[in-house]
């Protein structure tokens, strides 16, 4: 039973949500009450364009709210603001225009544009920090139908872990506290580091930290808590990676930065499969009616999702 804690949200995320909701509200008003709205902003004619603008607003609103990274949609809002300002400028030349209200409307749009720009900048900064900047964190937990002692022992022998963890090529114990790790990265790269246990409470908790000189400074911990109702153990993992600059750092950031929490969840799931069933569920290598070659598998939802995962 996997569980996840809230994704870390930045100021940009909160603002984006507010702007997304605002977009949808405004869009609905434009579609269902175009007359009221045109009057409000000082136009007397030309209501036909309002519902179309409403559709645009709703589309960007939904885009912002439904995507994990709404940066592009917020940028679309900025473009929409510019378009609205142009339309208002054109309308001010109309005979029946109510110039004070039009000016008010333009001022409102300018304020919203400012918010949109701030939001877009914050989001861009946030995503840059997550991929190339200071650190990548992941916290995940899962319930495993085995007692804490047994899981602790299995985990404590780090050489067991590559069987469950897709991106770890090998782990070698140097002595009881230190181990050497090799991880696979895209493009055939390998990254390596030595790790040292910094806290060790048998049956309960292990914490580790990489030693200086490794390719990727990292630290992490795992807790084993008895699950209620005889359901085994709740495992909680916390990982933090600090990818260095340069090519290797960029490659590693790509490896984990896309979805460090999802990777961690998948690793935990495989760990659970391994200790509960003795094997890891797979369909790799099974038969199918797909022909080989790049066009054997058409672009499908499953395909896109699988790609997203790797």
């Amino acid at each position, binding site marked *: 039973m996997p569980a996840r804690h809230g994704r870390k949200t930045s100021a940009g995320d909160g603002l984006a949500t507010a702007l997304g909701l605002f977009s949808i509200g405004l869009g609905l008003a434009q579609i269902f009450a175009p007359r009221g709205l045109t009057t409000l902003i000082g136009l007397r004619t030309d209501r036909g364009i309002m519902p179309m603008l409403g559709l645009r607003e709703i589309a960007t609103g939904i885009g912002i709210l439904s995507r994990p990274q709404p940066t592009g949609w917020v940028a679309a809002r900025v473009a929409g603001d510019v378009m609205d300002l142009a339309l208002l400028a054109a309308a001010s030349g109309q005979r029946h225009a109510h110039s004070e209200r039009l000016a008010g409307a333009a001022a409102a749009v300018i304020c919203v544009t400012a918010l949109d720009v701030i939001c877009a900048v914050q989001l861009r900064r946030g995503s840059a920090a997550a991929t190339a900047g200071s650190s990548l964190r992941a916290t995940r937990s899962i319930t495993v139908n085995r007692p804490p002692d047994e899981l602790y022992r299995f985990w404590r022998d780090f050489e067991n872990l590559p069987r469950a963890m897709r991106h770890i090529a090998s782990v070698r114990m140097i002595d009881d506290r230190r181990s050497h790790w090799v991880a696979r990265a895209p493009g055939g790269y390998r990254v390596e580091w030595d790790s040292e246990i910094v806290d060790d409470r048998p049956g309960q908790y292990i914490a580790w930290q990489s030693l200086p000189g490794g390719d990727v400074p990292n630290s992490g911990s795992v807790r084993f808590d008895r699950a209620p109702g005889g359901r085994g153990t709740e495992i909680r993992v916390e990982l933090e990676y600090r990818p260095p600059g340069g090519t290797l750092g960029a490659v590693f950031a790509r490896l984990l930065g896309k979805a460090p929490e999802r990777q961690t969840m998948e690793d935990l799931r495989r760990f659970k499969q391994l200790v509960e069933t003795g094997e*890891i569920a797979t369909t790799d290598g099974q038969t199918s009616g797909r022909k080989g070659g790049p066009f054997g598998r058409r672009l499908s939802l499953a395909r896109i999702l699988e790609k997203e995962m790797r």
Partner: protein
Amino acid sequence: MKANCWHAKHKLRVEEVPDPQILNPRDAIVKITSTAICGSDLHLYNGFVPTMERGDILGHEFMGEVVETGHEVKNLKVGDRVVVPFPISCGHCYFCNNEMFSLCENSNPNAWMAEKMFGHSPAGIFGYSHMLGGYAGGQAEYARVPFADVGPIKVPDGVPDERVLFLSDIFPTGWMAAENCDIKPGHVVAVWGCGPVAQFAIASAYMQGAERVIAIDRIPARLRMAREKAGAETINYEETDVYDSLMEMTGGRGPDACIDAVGMEAHAPGIAGMYDRVKQATMLESDRPIALREAIMACRKGGTVSVPGVYGGFDDKIPLGAIMNKALTIKTGQTHVQRYMRPLLDRIQNGDIDPGFVITHRMRLEDAPEGYDLFMNKQDDCVKVVLKI
């Protein structure tokens, strides 16, 4: 080997594919002797289940002979005759330990996809989309069966395939649908649909002590089968209003339990049916929950609505007010087949029931696409197609 492969909506091809291999120590390879087309396969055929891929091998109701076992499979040997349950279950997780096999936590390699749709993932299922594991199915000459030490049940040589094949899905599914109704002596049970699962739900409700079972459909041959083979009273919803008829037949109480054995592609005459068709076609709604709505509205106060019918997504206009104000219980789920195979095999061998009564068509594997078409369009009085290999 030959296998029935999905290529697109309404496009299936039986083609030559590589033979399956053992991939994990608890796998077995089964040489299939009989395999069936399930009503739920039609949801794949009609393109309503996301994450299907071109070339996927269909089929989750199959049986045959063990021809190879992984080194951890100790309870089966080459030559054993087995029926394979459709959910793939590890036998060691919390859910398997508690006999909720279709909720196994360890058999879906694509669990994260299902988590996006459902919050948590159910068990992997043979031939039933990548979201539910992407496992190659059993409408083929051979199949790889994961966790073969837990799922498949051995059947004696003397019993014909047709009598035990449906232990793989539809007999346990109908049985669990009835069991979920918590039937007490004197209870009246209504069953929406007269397809194969419904036929077993009717038969099971009687075996579990129901006094009367009322079945609802519009296809004369299916209504006839429900009356003559399963013993139900019937309502043709194209001729009479379902709610009014049920109230008339139950003295205004409504059925004590209602079973929706229809699922996501229900049909309905008139405006209600059009409404859901349009919404489903424009992807504003993933299922057409017409039978479910009717079942909820008709169910007796304090009664149970049991849902073996397959639903996949986010549905519209479910009468939650009726569920709450009438204090209804809703029970549903993919069938925990492994829980029921042994006791139902005993019933078959005792002569309580011969599940073969639902079979109307026997075809060759090569004719699978034709079988799907026949089954979907309910031509030639088709209720159940079995493919022989």
